[in-house]
């Protein structure tokens, strides 16, 4: 059991949009949307609070967002700007504890149980973090303080933007009494609907529900739900330096236009495979199972795995395995919207690579890695990937 803990959640306010407003003062006070281009496929990554007033939110299609807020300024996102800023935020937070869990690019949990007193208490830690983020980066954040991760997340959402909220132990019961269940982090729309069918709409009703009944309905998660209703969350902070090894490495790509041209599809599969291979080698992993994901224009998604005898980390070997799966789908003439490649069944460090593989191929791979490390990704690439059209759009993964 966890003893008494003090957990802080730092959540940046409208992160990407606020950075853009900081870069360009003319955008301050205006609705700003960060997302892709004005096409059917693009979605919003972040919306400023001025844009949110029009009902725009992240993950909304760009076209719909512009329809709701025609005066909004649409900015094409700059990931390196945002990741560098996130590192600077996490560096500030890391000055107050080494027990920091990076939860997403704009959120981190801090366990300050053992360190807060050195800085005058958790409230002072939170105030210092807010002051430094504002003075060093010009950005605001919302902070929640509570006894566990779930309640600190709840607290951070109570004072947005630029808020600082503490949920004290004695206040938990009163707070949860009328709180809708969907306000608890981890309860999404599907669970909310299932709970509502059981007559549970408030956290206090969840707390008073029969545990066996919840377990019957939700399995192991039923137990978690019961404790959530009681404001209890035993989940530990997982510091970024002790995160478990990854289970798989994958990338996907949504085409700008649906295509039936298998040459185009294969080229994207090759590029994704090379990206996966590069990440595997960087982290000293190799894998034995290759998964290919294909989503058709009608949104039907096909996913197949192929396991191979030897561990691989070479993009071209991954591509060949993915291609063998794709070949079996050749008869399907539907237009393709998205492709994804993933390698799982991973081992780290020394592993038995193919004994009979051409050693020159390994040397070539090393030489290519050295060149790409020196000059940037895809500075050197397979001829198949050199095209007249630019295919350097962002790949997800």
């Amino acid at each position, binding site marked *: 059991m966890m003893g008494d803990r003090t957990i802080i959640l730092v959540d940046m306010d409208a992160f990407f949009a606020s*950075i853009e407003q*900081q*870069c*360009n*003062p*003319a*955008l301050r006070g205006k609705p700003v949307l960060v997302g892709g281009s004005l096409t059917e496929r693009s979605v919003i990554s972040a919306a400023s609070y001025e844009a949110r007033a029009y009902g725009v939110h992240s993950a909304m299609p760009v076209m719909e967002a512009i329809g709701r807020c025609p005066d909004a*300024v649409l*900015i*094409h996102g700059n990931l*390196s*700007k945002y990741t*560098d*800023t996130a590192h600077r935020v996490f560096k500030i937070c890391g000055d107050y504890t080494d027990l920091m869990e990076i939860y997403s690019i704009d959120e981190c949990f801090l366990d300050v149980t053992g360190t807060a007193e050195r800085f005058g208490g958790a409230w002072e830690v939170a105030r210092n973090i807010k002051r430094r983020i504002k003075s060093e980066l*010009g950005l605001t954040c919302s902070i929640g303080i509570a006894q566990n991760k779930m309640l600190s997340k709840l607290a951070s959402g109570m004072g947005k933007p630029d808020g600082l909220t503490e949920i004290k132990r004695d206040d938990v019961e009163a707070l949860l009494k009328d709180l809708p269940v969907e306000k608890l982090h981890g309860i999404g729309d599907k669970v909310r609907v299932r709970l509502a069918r059981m007559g549970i709409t408030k956290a206090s009703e969840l707390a008073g529900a029969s545990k066996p009944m919840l377990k019957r309905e939700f399995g192991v998660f039923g137990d978690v739900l019961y404790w959530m209703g009681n404001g209890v969350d035993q989940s530990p902070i997982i510091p970024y330096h002790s995160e478990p090894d990854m289970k798989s490495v994958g990338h996907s790509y949504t085409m700008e236009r649906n295509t039936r041209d298998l040459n185009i599809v294969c080229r994207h599969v090759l590029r994704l495979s090379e990206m996966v291979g590069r990440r595997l080698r960087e982290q000293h992993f190799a894998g034995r199972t290759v998964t290919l994901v294909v989503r058709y224009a009608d949104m039907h998604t096909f996913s197949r795995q192929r396991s191979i005898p030897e561990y691989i980390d070479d993009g071209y070997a991954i591509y060949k395995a993915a291609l063998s799966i794709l070949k079996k789908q050749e008869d399907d003439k539907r237009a393709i919207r998205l492709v994804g490649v993933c390698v799982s069944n991973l081992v780290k460090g020394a592993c038995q690579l193919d004994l009979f593989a051409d050693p020159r191929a390994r040397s070539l791979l090393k030489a290519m890695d050295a060149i*790409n*490390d*020196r*000059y*940037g990704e895809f*500075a050197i690439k397979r001829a198949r990937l050199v095209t007249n059209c630019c295919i350097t759009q962002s790949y997800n993964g």
Partner: protein
Amino acid sequence: MEIVTVDEEVRVGAAFDNRKICPVWFLWRSRYYKVRRVTYNWRSSLGIEKLYYFAVIVAGGSSVYELCFNSGSLEWTLSRISGGDE
């Protein structure tokens, strides 16, 4: 708001102060621009080369000029210009 990609090499006068770089002026297409304020800065990389970006506003205008310093090649580039209030 118009955003123009430039990607042209520029001459820059910069102050190196307290282990920080701060562009003070730049020359682009034979025109002199005095930096009024650095509104934001961030780092990126291209291979092993570190890129230092600065969003700046120049005297007499509100457009934002994005300057990039490549610490490997010691080159300055004007990456892009975003429209301001004018």
